[in-house]
């Protein structure tokens, strides 16, 4: 089981050689669930051993290794070398595309902020799930704005600094407008009554939101 050829116990009253004592201290410290005091070591090692000296040897042996022998209060323990702590973390990064619902919601918040959830739903034509809002909040791309001064005082959403950073924008005003979208071939060239309008020319449904648009 072990690679050692020599027997350990020499005699009943003679302490094992120091190298052997060091091995013993090493095994005990390794297997113990808690730091071990010198007294505990003495109690567990054969009679006549010198645990303090064995620890001193052991400590020197582990200098500069991946684990070190460290003192914890009155006791001793083996610990990962501080400079290797980063190895004890396993990080997995998963690249994922935002869902269509999330990116559309984000776009609406960006173009229409501050915007209420009801408005987002009206613009998208479908309900916005709680999860989508949460996800965008978690990503720190949108945050809560001021409450709208209308019945029910609904909360509004605005984009964050972090959003601007991520998309390389100085402010939400720098978002490409409808003309640029069309120039980029993202919109049809034929005139589209709704899409052509400047924000403040739109009908009364959105006018409340539009007056506050890009306010900050």
């Amino acid at each position, binding site marked *: 089981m072990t690679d050692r050829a020599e027997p350990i116990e020499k005699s009943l009253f003679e302490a094992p050689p120091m190298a052997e004592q060091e091995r013993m201290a090493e095994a005990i410290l390794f297997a113990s669930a808690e730091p071990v005091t010198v007294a505990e070591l003495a109690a567990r090692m054969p009679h006549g051993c010198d645990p303090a000296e064995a620890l001193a040897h052991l400590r020197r042996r582990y200098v500069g290794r991946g684990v070190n022998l460290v003192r914890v209060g009155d006791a001793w323990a083996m610990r990962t070398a501080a400079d290797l702590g980063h190895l004890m973390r*396993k990080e997995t990064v998963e690249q994922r595309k935002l869902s269509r619902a999330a990116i559309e919601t984000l776009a609406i918040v960006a173009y229409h902020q501050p915007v209420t959830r009801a408005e987002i739903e009206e613009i998208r034509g479908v309900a916005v799930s709680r999860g989508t809002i949460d996800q965008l909040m978690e990503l720190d791309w949108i945050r809560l704005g001021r409450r709208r001064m209308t019945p029910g005082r609904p909360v509004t959403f605005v984009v964050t600094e972090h959003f601007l950073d991520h998309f390389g924008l100085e402010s939400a005003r720098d978002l490409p407008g409808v003309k640029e979208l069309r120039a980029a071939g993202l919109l049809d060239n034929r005139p589209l009554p709704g899409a052509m309008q400047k924000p403040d020319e739109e009908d009364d449904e959105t006018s409340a939101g539009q007056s506050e648009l890009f306010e900050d």
Partner: protein
Amino acid sequence: MSDPIADDWGEERLAPADRMAAEALIVDVDGYEGPLDLLLMLSRTQKVDLRRISVLELAEQYLAFVNRASALRIELAADYLVMAAWLAFLKSRLLLPPEPGAEGPSAEELAAHLAFQLERLQAMREAAARLMARDQLGRDFFARGLPEDVTRLRKIDYSATLLDLMRAYARIRTKDDFRPFVMDRNHVFTMEQALERMRGLIGYAGEWADLTSFLPDGWDVNPMRRRSSTAAHFAAILEMAKRGQVEVRQGETFAPIQIRRKEP
């Protein structure tokens, strides 16, 4: 093993020593792990290598054991009896010369297989013992007592570019233009809706009444809603007139349109 039982067995006239031996064997039956285990134990009395064991002798030993057990009215599990029947068959095959042209394996083949099974079981027993005699984790050698857990960080990096954002917005705006109807639905009263309404109301319209009085509440303030609902209801009464359900009249151009239920 008290006297009443001994009385029962009186007729067997077993010598006490024999009975003790028999009982020792029987008491052990519980300890056997099936007929193969019992056979393995019996084979040890032959004091030979399992490869040279006499299966015939073993069969006789086993049958004798089963007979003794039944004499002692010990109920043996079915598989012991199945094995006894098979061994009896094997014994007869081993003793008699083979029938010419007999099909199936020879008695020797069957006997060899039984010997193999015993040897294999014995080998597994020894292997199990050697396995359990090994140094074991948590008894003879130990793992780290104070493991440092690896912190697992699962990071999901959601990516979206400005182009994604622009595309998404363009998609929404385009969608708006293609389905204004959906957006404005709350200002539109359809003819189907009006027809449905009028069908319910006309029952009460025995006298001539203005069409406008039939318009639903809340549809007469907003001009767009008023137009939509008036048009829908007008279309509805025309349809009903065609079916002969109502009469329609108008005094002159632009005068109020009046309706009443047509009597059947």
